[in-house]
């Protein structure tokens, strides 16, 4: 196993991956639209709905897809550069790739699957055996090396696919929705395990998923994509709590978006008027906004307080509405509160005091703490 823990001196000094102005158009769909980013090391996730271009990006990095424009460098070595006519074939990029459907070769045993790349690199039989066994050991598949892929469960096949890439000791491993074919419970287990494993081996990983929980759990940095563009690149916390783009706010977390206009903006905070809430003014954290700016008001529905009695003075943003429905979801409950023209969904925790629906003619009060609001200026 020692071979996986080798020190990589360049790791801290140069970006493992650098993508510049990558574009790719399929027929009339822009799969990649001038995508640029750098990534030092660790685990980075690309998050977005299907068709947002994340898989195309991954395949371009692997060399399986030829972009229309732009360049890709891995560890400071140019791999793809359309402008300079450089296109390193996938077999020379020295990366790992875990496919969504695992892509295990059905006619080879687990051992042969993992040994495939090593054999092509003309390693000695001894070394191949040692490395294959070490890789299988690492993913917890000791003793299964003579099985065929069809004799393994989905989770085990997933591990073989991972071992096949790790055995080659790549500097970068690309994972294309690797957990999406597993059932929910196994997926949560594998998520944690995958992260531990990648950290243990000490390589960098680029992870593509449409599942935000997965992206947040597994990665050091998250990139949200839509329509072939990178909308936001940040830590999971930044993405969740400080979305910079309405799409990010809507896609990530449990949020609702409302149209607003900035009324006041200073270092204490930002006051926005929301016409949908009977023209109520909401106070929110300071934002780079100028009075008069049109904006989106993002409200995280899990961070609201609900009461059938008026809140005490000094509580942020109290709105008055009518409870119109309630959906019990196990640990959480969605309360539907009609405020002005809009229905606000308040998700409350199991431990939250229950609200009477019909108290005081169905009147309900909602308090939105300013920390639950993000204001995104739109132009």
């Amino acid at each position, binding site marked *: 196993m020692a071979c996986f823990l080798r020190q990589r001196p360049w790791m801290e000094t140069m970006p493992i991956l650098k993508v510049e102005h990558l574009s790719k158009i399929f027929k009339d769909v822009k799969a990649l639209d001038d995508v640029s980013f750098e990534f030092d090391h660790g685990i980075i996730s690309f998050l977005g709905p299907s068709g947002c271009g994340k898989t195309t990006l991954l395949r371009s990095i*692997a*060399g*399986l897809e*030829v972009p229309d424009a732009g360049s890709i460098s891995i560890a400071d070595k140019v791999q793809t550069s359309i402008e300079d006519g450089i*296109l390193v*074939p*996938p*077999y*020379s*990029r020295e*990366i*790992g*790739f875990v*496919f*969504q*459907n695992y*892509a*295990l*070769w*059905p*006619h080879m045993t687990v051992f042969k699957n993992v040994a*495939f*790349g090593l054999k*092509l*690199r003309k390693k000695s039989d001894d070394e191949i055996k040692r490395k294959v066994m070490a890789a299988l050991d690492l993913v917890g598949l000791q003793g299964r090396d003579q099985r065929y892929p069809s004799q393994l469960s989905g989770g085990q096949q997933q591990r073989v*696919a991972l071992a*096949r*890439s790790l055995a*080659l000791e790549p500097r970068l491993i690309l994972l294309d929705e690797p957990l999406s074919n597993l059932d929910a419970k196994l997926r949560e287990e594998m998520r944690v395990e995958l992260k531990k494993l990648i950290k243990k081996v000490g390589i960098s990983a680029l992870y593509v998923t449409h599942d935000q929980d997965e992206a947040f759990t597994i990665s050091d940095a998250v990139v949200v994509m839509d329509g072939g563009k990178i909308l936001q690149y940040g830590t999971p916390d930044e993405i969740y709590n400080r979305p910079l783009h309405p799409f990010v706010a809507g896609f990530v977390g449990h949020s609702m978006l409302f149209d607003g206009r900035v009324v006041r903006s200073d270092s204490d905070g930002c006051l926005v008027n929301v016409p949908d809430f009977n023209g109520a003014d909401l106070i929110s954290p300071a934002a780079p906004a100028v009075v008069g700016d049109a904006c989106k008001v993002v409200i995280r529905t899990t961070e609201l307080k609900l009461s059938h009695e008026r809140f005490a003075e000094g509580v942020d943003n109290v709105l008055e509405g009518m409870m119109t429905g309630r959906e019990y979801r196990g640990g959480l409950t969605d309360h539907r509160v009609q405020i002005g023209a809009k229905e606000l969904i308040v998700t409350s925790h199991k431990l939250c005091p229950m609200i009477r629906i019909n108290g005081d003619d169905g009147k309900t009060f909602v308090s939105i703490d300013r920390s639950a609001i993000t204001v995104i200026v739109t132009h």
Partner: protein
Amino acid sequence: MRQGTLVPLVASAIAGAAIITPVLVVMWRSFTTGKLGFTVGLNLTNYLRVFTDRDLVPMLSNSVIYAGGAALLGTGLGASLAWIVARTNTPGKGLVELMPLYPILMPPIMKNIAWILLLAPRSGILNGMLQQFLGIDTLVFNAFSMAGMIWVFGLACVPLGYLFLLPVFLSFDPSLEESAYIAGSKPVRTMFKITFPLALPAFTSALVLNFLRGLRSFETPVLQGTPGNIKVFVSRVYDSMALEFNTGLATAYSVVLVVMSIITLYFYIRATRFSERYATITGKGYRVKVIDIGPWKYLTFAAVLLYFLVGIVIPFIVLIVVSMIPYFDYDTFMRFPFNAVLTNYYTVLRHPSFMTGLYNSLILSVTIAIVTVLTGIVMAFTIYRTRAAGTKVFEFIGTLPLAFPPLVLSVGLLIIFIGTPLYNSLWALGLGLFVAYFPYAFRNASGAIVNIHKELDEAAWVHGARWRHVFFKITLPILKPSVGGALFYIFIEAIRNVDVAVLLTSPGKEYGPVTLFEYFRVGQWAEAAAGGVIYLIILIVAVSVAKFAFKMKFSL
């Protein structure tokens, strides 16, 4: 990746050139006049002759009646048998379950020979029996009539109808019928309103494909049609090539035939597309309900038994008996087994033209099977697995020979090779077989490669494989089962081929089935039968080897 595609690309281009050249030559030659080896100017003389041919209209109608009649008879019979086997409690239906094996064992030319022996107007066995036992002096049966042609080729169409319809009846979602029952429909009504309409697309596909086979068929028109003066396009092409040596005329008739084939092929593609829309009958794992048809089962049993005897057993028996009598006529035939001799086998096996023919057909069909299947895989790989631009053109080229009756392809090859050292060599013959069977290998490989998940290849790419590693270590091993099937099929088809080989053989370069064809044409019927039985034995050995050594399955 781009530079790695060079080798498969070049290989595909060579194969593509080999395929398209005879096709182009036929086209070009149809616009020139002059006998074999000479060319006189570009003109429309041939077409003028074709379109002023007094026989043109009868020939068109003969072709359509013959191919259509045989297709209707064969497909209808095959579909009925499939329904009886899949859905009824008819006793003894196991007799029909050998159906997939039957066309493998019985080469088309043997079928024609057996039925001519049975149905020939004067010397035929059946007319003789009518006269001897019932005192009927009129010649009821005539192999050399349109009815005789339709009957013989129709029987050859039965297995395809059966094979197309059986999976439909077997994989039928029973809930479709059950919901009709619940809606108040009785079983018979349900059959006609639900079951048969849903089987109609598959039936149409089989019908059109059988029609196409009829248009392309060689043995029946030449052996039965020509003696009875019933002309169709294939026999006309053959006559103008083999008797008149008029390449211009032969190629012009060929072009008419090709146009008819292309029109049919178009309808076939439409029919199969239509049948794919009937998604309800593609599901797997249903247990279809066998219907108790009451006393009708004795009628269906009689039908099954009759087909088994007439369609399968009797031709075999006739061939074997005739191969063992001194010479063929009705009285000699009826004296069997008291006059049984092996002289025919002795004659045939000592005849150099038969022995070289046998040897050539064995060597060539094995070689051609291997070469065709491998090339087919490489071409399919080039199209679906490399990213070189314009590879789609190979898809067209690879399928093109389907539109060209084998006889037409050999006309083209003969024109190409005449006057070159390759004329009168096995190379010409081999190339002809390669072109004729390439579409089967190619389509088989395409279907299989498309079904291999692309990620399996890509996983190899990113783990360090070049195209040759992907091809030899991933694609080829995964394709192994379908490669085996295609090898076997092309071997079986090639070893008994008459229509490609007939124009390309020459003294010293015989081809076994063509030698039998010639025996039969000059009236050595007993020798032809003996040679046929020898081929039968070879085919039985091949099937047994495939079944037991390679575990190939011959049933559905």
